[in-house]
């Protein structure tokens, strides 16, 4: 079953053409990675799928919903983690998770928050103000926020950005576990090792166009590469 169907997606910012007619599908329970150089159109694509930006032309379907017409319904089943996201500094970590949880099922607020606290794994610091958190702690809180609601689709832009090796590994493990519970993940990353470890399928995007798509193994085979980083350098010259 396809959770995301992107067809001929085009996005213009004034005269700049950021996305030039890309198409891809993501199956349920898969982790789909968008990789590409800076300014390739990855974040724009993720922001459009997250209902933040409008479509210039083309279409996107998330589950049974048309993104152009049913953005409100889509927001109930997705969760978006922007690359440089922040949290409300005057709230405690737990207070922030509670604030977010209140927008979802009212009778499950405590359950959602408990899951967020568990994923963030900030121990006693969860009761401290966000203002006092390090960048890594804040990122873990935000990952907890993004995954605590058991979204049908998690859209993660550079999920391990700003995390040290241990924390990054822990977050990758959490993302992998999430898909076992039925969540589909669409992510972008510059970390090719991360992409290789996490993703079931990859799309290589450059200058607003998808130039390659497939499983990590099939791409490595096609380009006779040892790893995805090598595939990347061969494809994006």
């Amino acid at each position, binding site marked *: 079953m396809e959770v995301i169907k992107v067809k001929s997606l085009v996005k213009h*910012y*004034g005269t700049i053409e950021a996305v030039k007619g890309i198409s891809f599908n993501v199956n349920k329970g898969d982790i789909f990675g968008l990789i590409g150089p800076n300014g390739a159109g990855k974040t724009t694509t993720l*922001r459009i799928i*997250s*209902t*933040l*930006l*409008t479509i*210039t032309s083309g279409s996107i379907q998330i589950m049974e919903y048309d993104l152009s017409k049913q953005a*409100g319904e889509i*927001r*109930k089943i*997705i*969760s*978006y983690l*922007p690359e*440089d*996201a*922040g*949290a*409300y*500094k005057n709230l405690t970590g737990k207070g922030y998770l509670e604030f*977010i949880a209140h*927008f*979802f099922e009212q009778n499950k607020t405590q359950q959602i928050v408990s899951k967020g606290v568990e994923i963030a794994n900030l121990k006693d610091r969860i009761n401290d103000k966000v203002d006092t958190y390090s960048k890594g702690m804040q990122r873990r809180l*935000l990952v907890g*926020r993004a995954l605590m609601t058991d979204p049908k689709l998690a859209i993660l832009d550079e999920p391990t950005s700003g995390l040290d090796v241990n924390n990054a590994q822990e977050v990758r493990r959490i993302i992998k576990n999430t898909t076992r519970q039925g969540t589909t993940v669409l992510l972008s990353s510059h970390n090719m090792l991360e992409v290789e470890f996490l993703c079931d399928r990859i799309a290589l995007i450059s200058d607003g166009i998808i130039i390659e798509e497939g499983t990590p193994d099939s791409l490595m085979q096609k380009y006779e590469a040892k790893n995805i980083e090598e595939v990347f350098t061969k494809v994006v010259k």
Partner: protein
Amino acid sequence: MSSLGNIIKKELRELMTPTTFIPIIIIAIMFGSMGNAIGSIEEEMEERPIIGFIDADQSNLSFVATRILEGFGDVVFNSSDISEKEIGIEELKDKDGIALLIIPSDFSEKILNNEPSEIEVYWIMKGAGILDSISSAVVEELFSTINTNLSYELISNNATVNASTALNPTSRNDTTYFKGKVLNGVSPSDVSGILSSQSTIIPIVMMMIIIMAGSTVISSMALEKENKTLETLLTLPVKRVSIVAGKIIASALIGLMLAVIYMIGFSYYMNSFQFSGQINVNQLGLVLSLGDLLLLGLSVFVTLIAALSFCMLLGTMAKNFKSAQTLTFPVTLFALIPMFLTMFKDFDTIPLALKAFLFGIPFSHPMMAPRALIFDDYLLVIGGIIYVSIFALIMISIAVWVFKTDRLLTGSIKRKKISFRKLKK
């Protein structure tokens, strides 16, 4: 280039932005406008006041008074028949006059009998602003000239009057006509004094509330962008209108709390001058009824919502906290202009173009409302409430629309192009 020169060049490039200069330019323009206003006070003081008088005494002493009136004023009504009082008042009203003075038939007889003679003055008051009261102040000045000249006349002619009468030969009995009310025993300066307390305090309170609550909304939007929390908020299952309304309502509550604190202090202040200067404002009818207070409250409330909606719209343009501070300037400006205008001039006495401008600024209405309510000008107040409500609705609608576009995140608005293919079909 030396290191110092390099640093100076870099600093200048960072500091020379519209953010730095726009507020200063606006303040300079405001000071310039205020300078012009003060200039017109001087002109108005030099103008000859339009007056009328009835000299029922026709004596040497009354001629001393009328000569001064003719010398310093522009006399448009002159009579010796006291029964022509009403005609004189109407004549002055028609000719934009200020006051009708009635010198009684026993004017000189009373003075010579050591009794100060009472001159009746019927004032036609046009406005209660600082600039409006200048012409009546000029006429009041004529009375001291009349007294001084009468004293000189009495002393130089060796009149047999006591020192007290020689120094103060006349007294005044004032009646003021203002906005359909006849106020006995008070002069325009007394009325201005009572009303200026309101026309000073309420605009200042309103201005402070609008600026404080408004900057809260703008900063809130700017902080959402600066702290990168806006994107998350916009992907949550919450309607855009709820986000806009939530921010406006929270800031309105803060604004109202501030208003209540100010109003408590203000009500104590009002109580302190209810009987000040032996003027009973209740007796004169210069107080607000319960219905008036409710209308005033409604005017304040809708204006606050309108101000916050306008600020929400400005907030969507804020990129960060610094730009938010710049964006509060239009709000400050639109709060300061009506504050100064309502202090200096009455709505009724300003030129039509300025009237339209003042009416168009939504923040003017609660500043003009107290005076309008005291003088039963409900059309201005209710019309203002309707106008401000419409303004608020339009601002909220635009803000919600902006929330639905890319403008909030990218700074540009998606323009829909007309497809020629679709047109052909």
